[in-house]
């Protein structure tokens, strides 16, 4: 059974959406970022997306870029990420690595899969890898029983929604808006349309929504139509603000309440 699908299914059984939080490893340093991930779990995150710092994060907005740049310069790499994976698993959440493709390719795809599985990681989310180019990763993740999460977007055709979800295991990441990561005042209604279209072809695969969610109200809004709510930039901002682990824990508590509330449902 896929660890991600299992955890998201457990949330669904509780009548709520899962909370998926993102933080990159290495900001402001490796140990502090891992402590913040632990706090994220203590506050109520079900899944932690553990970000691999990358020099050219083409899908990320200015907030995440700002946190990742110093980590890249400090030489933070997959060995540090694997430590974070172990820490998140120990804290009781499901760890998934979020990485642009080149760091994984450079590390070695097969070696990455083996080491990630050994560290207790559930799998990986790959924002710039489409299934069409993922032959080696599909094979390695299959061999090591890892989940693999690809993205769908509002611009995806129905045919691509079908082929991409067929290649996913764990969940499918619905990028709610056309654009880069960052908080937005409102969650685009394109998100709900995309979830409906994706569900139509995804079978039992959970659909989680990311890009733009930053507070409990938005989390509740998305939880009304998605299986999981993905929050990244808002967490990173807590780290940049210097509120650190306490700020991250507080945000998790707010978001965890949000995914239990659901928009329009009295809490």
């Amino acid at each position, binding site marked *: 059974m896929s660890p991600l699908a299992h955890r998201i299914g457990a949330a669904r059984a509780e009548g709520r959406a899962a909370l998926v939080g993102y933080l990159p490893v290495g900001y402001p340093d490796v140990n502090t970022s891992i402590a913040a991930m632990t706090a994220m779990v203590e506050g109520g995150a079900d899944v932690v997306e553990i970000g691999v*710092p*990358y*020099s*050219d*994060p*083409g*899908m990320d*907005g*200015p907030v995440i*870029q700002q946190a990742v*740049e110093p980590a*890249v310069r400090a*030489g*933070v*790499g*997959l060995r540090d990420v694997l430590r974070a994976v172990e820490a998140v698993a120990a804290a009781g959440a499901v760890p998934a690595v979020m990485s642009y*493709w*080149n*760091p*994984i*390719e*450079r*590390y070695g795809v097969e070696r990455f899969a083996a080491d990630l599985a050994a560290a207790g990681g559930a799998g990986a989310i790959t*924002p*710039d*890898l*489409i299934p*069409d*180019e993922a032959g080696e990763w599909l094979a390695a993740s299959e061999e090591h029983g890892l989940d693999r999460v*690809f*993205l*769908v*977007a*509002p*611009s*995806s*055709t129905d045919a*691509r929604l079908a082929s*991409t979800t067929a290649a996913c295991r764990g969940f499918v990441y619905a*990028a709610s808006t*056309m*654009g*880069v990561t960052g908080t937005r005042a409102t969650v685009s209604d394109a998100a709900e349309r995309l979830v409906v279209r994706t569900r139509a072809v995804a079978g039992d695969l959970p659909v989680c929504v990311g890009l733009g969610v930053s507070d409990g109200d938005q989390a509740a809004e998305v939880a009304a139509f998605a299986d999981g709510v993905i929050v990244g930039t808002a967490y990173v901002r807590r780290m940049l603000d210097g509120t650190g682990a306490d700020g991250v824990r507080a945000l998790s508590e707010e978001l965890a309440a949000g995914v239990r509330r659901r928009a329009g449902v009295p809490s």
Partner: protein
Amino acid sequence: MTTSAVHPPEERLEPARPTWPDATGHFGVFGGRFVPEALIAALDELTEAYEAMRVDPAFLAEFAALQRDYTGRPSPVTEVPRFAEHCGGARVLLKREDLNHTGSHKINNVLGQALLTKRIGKQRVIAETGAGQHGVATATAAALMGLSCTVYMGEEDTRRQALNVARMRLLGAEVIPVTTGSRTLKDAINEAFRDWVTNVETTNYVFGTVAGPHPFPAMVRDFQRVIGDEARGQVLEREGRLPDAVLACVGGGSNAIGIFTAFVPDDGVRLVGLEAGGDGVGTGRHAATITGGAPGVLHGARSYLLQDDNGQTIESHSISAGLDYPGVGPEHSYLHDIGRAEYRPVTDAEAMEAFALLCRTEGIIPAIESAHALAGAMRLGQELVAQGDGGRGGEPPLLLVNLSGRGDKDVETASRWFGLGDREHVEPGAGMDTDQQPTDGAVTSGDAVRGQDAGSQA
């Protein structure tokens, strides 16, 4: 690779389109699409429109008319005998892309992509630029065709290429200095992709080189191959034979692919790409991607790139903004791996010596990018003559060099390098060291010419 041994090369006047990439944009293991899913629909739309357009007689006629009447094609081939005296006895022909409207080969590609933008019904174009030549070309085409235009340019490059920033603004384009990362071309491309993924419904990305996700490498090649198609015919006509080697500078690699493509089936013609060696490949401060890099994924395609053990892109260094890029087009990686083309580094000092030589011996101020190809010709000519081969029947070796752009934009950088003006108040420009060292394997007499003296020795 394909061969065409049935007929002598001279009879093959219209070279064929290469059999690569495959339908999904792969040149062997290189190329492909490594982009967020959100861009796939736009790339599919672009691919489909381009595939229809490139065989559409109406488009081809419109494109040819623009190239003739607006760009000024065909560009001439010029023999440079006084410069060639420094090339060991080889003869040197220059393909004069510097004489194109806007001053470089970049206009060839941009006119094609601007026509494509109109065809798919988009009103806005974005572009990245390093030296500013592609940005100027895109701003020019946008003005010509009534499109709105935004150009992303690394802040560092806006300083060293201030003239081109002013040109773009005069042409009505918005120029956005990019302040992330190394503040050069690589980061400008990241920002342009972020703009594109956000505004893809209204906006087309006019990519400037043969890199990026499919279909850009193949499409830009097809728009640039006119350089080699013309040059091959011109050399055959004036010499009755093909050149022994074709040389071009390689940053992303569009001018090199442009002149190489027609010659790829001509097995007897060496194809030589000159990469920016910066302070020297051994110093780590360079942009010689194939010479000093390893295969990986950057900016949407698999190709050689400069990267560290963690897969992070290493910042490149070159005196030439247009070559200061840590990646390279996937077709070059492929041509390298199958052994059809060879890639060599040229240091800043070697390039600037060749730059000064061409100015003083031929009255042509080249772009510093193109000066790397000239330096490559100096070295290759000496090698060929020393080895006693390259020529035919006792003739000297014949080298065809793509002079991809003119040096107006580089006057300030060159003046600083050579210490023209007030020597007491010279500050080294970006990519230059205050104590420039002679370079291993330097050209001509065996000594690289120190910056401030290069002009006088040439």
